């Protein structure tokens, strides 16, 4: 039972890590390697608002999400716009920007026990004899809520329609008056804001360190590759496979072998089905 509950929690955490990355990639084909850095950066922004400006928690969380979205938008508009379409350059710039953010955070001394976000909800309950604290349940709730919200947003608003248009065929979308740069910047802004949301609900469960940024990036990439890069259902299934794989491994083999799970998942999936579990055929052409 505890495997089931904690497996679900781990899986939802993984899905939250990946959501923003997958959204940006799915819409504008931009692999945002700065995703992990934005995640941890928004955690620190929230921390600074709470502890240095003295704002209440929810206001600072909201501000952190907004600022993170703005950073994503500005990042696209200032840097990525100039090299849009050159896959290698996009890759180098996002990767370098991510590392620069993480290293600057480390350099500024943002690590240690004092940096942690407060819990939303204290206490916990027992489900069938397994103790679970409210924060972890809240993470599950947020994950499901975000997925539903995102689905509604993408399918029932004008911007969502434009997102899907650009994702399907950029040129046709352009000819219908959807500006691809604007949508690209928005998609990066949304991806970053989602990273911030994930940071604000997940980070209270541990301490904040800039090295977490690398882990988030690794997990986001793993889940995205295993699931098939632009497919949301693939992403959810993949995060459950890897999440449960990790929890089961930790329980029956030993916690130190947990890291084998993502590695072997990637290699297996790439060897057997290079487009990912739910990737489309179009993707296969492009990747292989």
């Amino acid at each position, binding site marked *: 039972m505890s495997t089931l509950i904690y497996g679900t929690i781990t899986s939802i955490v993984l899905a939250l890590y990946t959501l923003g990355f997958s959204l940006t990639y799915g819409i504008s084909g931009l692999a945002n390697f700065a995703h992990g850095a934005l995640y941890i950066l928004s955690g620190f922004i929230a921390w600074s608002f709470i502890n240095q400006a003295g704002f209440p928690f929810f206001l600072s969380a909201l501000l952190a999400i907004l600022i993170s979205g703005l950073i994503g938008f500005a990042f696209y508009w200032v840097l990525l716009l100039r090299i849009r379409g050159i896959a290698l350059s996009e890759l180098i710039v996002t990767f370098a920007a991510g590392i620069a953010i993480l290293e600057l955070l480390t*350099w500024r001394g943002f690590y240690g026990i004092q940096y942690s976000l407060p819990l939303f909800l204290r206490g916990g309950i027992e489900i069938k004899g397994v103790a679970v604290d409210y924060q972890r349940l809240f993470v599950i709730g947020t994950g499901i809520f975000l997925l539903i919200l995102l689905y509604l947003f993408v399918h029932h608003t004008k911007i969502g329609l434009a997102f899907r248009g650009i994702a399907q065929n950029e040129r046709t979308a352009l000819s219908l008056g959807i500006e691809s740069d604007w949508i690209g910047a928005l998609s990066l802004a949304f991806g970053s804001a989602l990273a911030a949301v994930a940071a604000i609900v997940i980070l209270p469960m541990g301490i904040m360190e800039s090295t977490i940024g690398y882990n988030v990036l690794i997990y986001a990439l793993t889940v995205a590759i295993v699931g098939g890069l632009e497919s949301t259902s693939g992403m959810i299934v993949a995060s459950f496979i890897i999440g449960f794989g990790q929890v089961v491994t930790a329980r029956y083999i030993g916690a130190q072998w947990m890291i084998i799970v993502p590695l072997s998942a990637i290699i297996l999936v790439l060897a057997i089905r290079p487009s990912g579990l739910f990737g489309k055929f179009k993707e296969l052409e492009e990747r292989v």
Partner: protein
Amino acid sequence: MTGIDATYRKKRLDRGIKVRSDSVFAISSYREILYLVLPRVVPVITLLVLPLILKGYWGKVLVFACMYGLLALSWDFLASCGLFSLGQSLFFGFGAYVAGTLSYYLHLTPAITLPIATLGGGLLSAALLSPVVRLRGVYFAMVTLMLPMLLMKMIEATGLVGGSHGLSALVPFHNEWISTYMAVVTFLVCLFGFRRLINEDYGLVLKAIRDDDRAVMSAAINIYWRKIQALFIAGAVGSFAGAFMTHHYQFVGMSAFALDYSILPVAAAALGGPGTFAGAALGSMILVPLSESLRALGGLRIALYCGVLIGSVILLPEGIFHYMERKYHQFETFVKVG
């Protein structure tokens, strides 16, 4: 800029001497021979003389620069067959760990461990990456970025080959002169070897894979096998650098898989100009001494490389080497239009 564009445009013309010396038969004067030979001989002589002049600390920096240069060359080699690696530290780490383990457990000298680590590291890299050679561009980059990080965590978690403490007190090089010259000569051989190789038939196939892999496939060439061969070559070069540094430090640890070894080669190649090998070499010769002189900044150094990387990708996408090459071979004048 718009004001100039309206009435003038920049015109580039090859210098006469370039046109004449392009063909071997036209070389008739010392001037033309020098024009061809100088850009190749001057860097070689400089690199061979530098170890005599630089002593102590800066001598070590030269060795570092050569090793990072090897990693950058290996990056550039992979890039010229369409494989964009963000994990040069994978190759470096494999070489370092193979040499380190052999030296620690069997007490072998560098003369034996270096060749074994070079070949073994190349084989390991090619074997580990062989399932993913089917991937292109961003996808390959993602996998290569993750592998060293995952391997680093695996070593930390399982405690194999020294775990987080690493292996220390390894066999050092006996003679500093030999090791320094080995670094410099390997770097030069690799640089000119790659430049030659990429224009041979073998290299042309690799470049064709980058440009259009379907066309190469339709010529009945097994592109995956070629890519694995390229990975072996690049992996072996990177592994040599790793093995060399292991004996140089007399220590190998998880830091062999650190991000420095991935990001600096890419930064060097981007700064110098990818695709020519000379650019990658030049970039590492600029960046490594620069970063050594900024050692006091600590972690900020990596942020600085990233700044250089972003700046050079956005502002000077062709790279320093291409820029210099253009100035050397061509006149530029503004001509009036209309």
